[in-house]
């Protein structure tokens, strides 16, 4: 199948460096955000989430930052590894609505 990473913004990162992936969300009423990682040929995998009452949340090697003022979300990956090469996309949800709105995604390529 054709790669879902075609036509996406691409971030090339040296192995061991930190990566920052950005996402601008659209709805100021969104109160829950998720970052997904999608490797070639696989389904999206949950990485980390954050609620709108928080500015920052940390996981294992990943940190999500939320700036509600400018409707901006970022994902930071520390010490990027070859296995981090994938498409990363953000998703937002509004209150009781069970639907998520997905961003188009960013391709991350880790250079060994």
């Amino acid at each position, binding site marked *: 199948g054709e790669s879902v990473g075609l*036509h996406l913004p691409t971030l090339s990162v040296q192995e061991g460096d930190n990566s920052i992936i950005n996402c601008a969300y659209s709805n100021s009423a969104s109160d829950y955000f998720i970052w997904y990682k999608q490797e070639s040929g696989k389904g999206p995998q949950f990485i980390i*989430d954050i609620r709108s009452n928080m500015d920052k949340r940390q996981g294992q090697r990943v940190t999500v930052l939320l700036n509600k003022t400018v409707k901006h979300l970022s994902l930071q990956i520390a010490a990027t590894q070859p296995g981090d090469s994938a498409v990363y996309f953000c998703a937002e949800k509004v209150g009781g609505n*069970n*639907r998520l709105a997905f961003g188009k995604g960013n391709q991350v390529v880790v250079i060994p």
Partner: protein
Amino acid sequence: DVKVTQSSRYLVKRTGEKVFLECVQDMDHENMFWYRQDPGLGLRLIYFSYDVKMKEKGDIPEGYSVSREKKERFSLILESASTNQTSMYLCASSTSGGRSGNTIYFGEGSWLTVV
């Protein structure tokens, strides 16, 4: 761990054939979703279901139907497959309750080629 299983990973069907894509989740989730994913277009919601026998249209329901006879199973049906339905299809599930924080979990995807 949440497990969303799509029974067919790769299918090749002829134009006009009826196609069934099956999805099963093992976490007793109320909500189930079918998306298609195409290069440059991202994830687009076809249909979703928030309970057994309940369904709602997503953003691109034309040419598709769904069935949810049991809570754990959500089927996507292409009544008469066309070449523009060649895509990767993703099933997903989540808990309900109307609260924020209901993470959606995805299956591994089904690659459908219609010739």
